[in-house]
């Protein structure tokens, strides 16, 4: 773990890698107004550089606020415009409940783990 730049900050980590032809963006930590900009820029960069499927793995996200939900919706729209399939991985209440409570569950293809998301099963 790298030390926080400034104390009292929210922590987020975003890492990306390829699995076959699919780009996987793994997010860990808390996605709130303070950390959302980092998630947004990482996802925009992925969308610019890939032509294939994008999997956003939220398994290690412990908080997801409305700014984070908005970034997911933006990403869905941008991916749709470029015909890039977008899949989410989430299984925890911390992520599923915000999606559900805001009526966004229907908008996304949601898988319980990364293997399922990669194979679409």
């Amino acid at each position, binding site marked *: 773990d790298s030390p926080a730049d*400034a104390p*009292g*900050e*929210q922590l987020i980590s975003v890492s990306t890698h390829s699995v076959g032809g699919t780009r996987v963006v793994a997010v860990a930590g*808390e996605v*709130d*107004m*303070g950390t959302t900009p980092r998630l947004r820029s990482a996802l925009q960069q992925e969308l610019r550089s890939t032509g294939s499927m994008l999997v956003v793995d939220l398994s290690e996200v412990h*908080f*997801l*606020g*409305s*700014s984070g*939900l*908005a970034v997911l*919706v933006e990403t869905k729209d941008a991916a749709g415009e470029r015909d890039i399939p977008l899949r989410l991985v989430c299984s925890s*209440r*911390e992520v599923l*409940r*915000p999606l559900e*409570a*805001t009526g966004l569950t229907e908008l996304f293809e949601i898988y319980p783990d990364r293997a399922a998301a990669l194979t679409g099963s």
Partner: protein
Amino acid sequence: MTGYNFLRSVNEATAPAGQAEVYIEVGALPAQVAPLRVVTADLAARADFDLDAVADLRMAVDEACSTLATLAVPDARMQCLVRVDTERITVTVRIPSPRIAVISQDTFGWRVLATLADKVEILGNDVADPPSLGIRLVKERQVGVA
């Protein structure tokens, strides 16, 4: 199996029956408001609100705090009072604010806040002196919900 389920106070005589208040103050910056949602969610869990209600309240408080943080003047502090009653939790968040600050209510974030809380109220900056702007939200205990 004998079960003693202990949920009562040691010193309940001195506490106002069925009520607790926690006041908390942080820097009014998006990167510093996390303790407010953490405390509120912890209090809701201790008060045995169901897990979805706790998650909703955590998100609603984050939304109120984030909204106000973006309207705060530099160096401002954010003040938050969490009141736990038997039937509901009431969270009041305030920032010192120039009188011209306006909370946008036609945003996705405000819609989320209005959805997750049972009641939301703006506390105007035209009454308080020094001027302050706030949001009060209420989450009712979800009685009988699994």
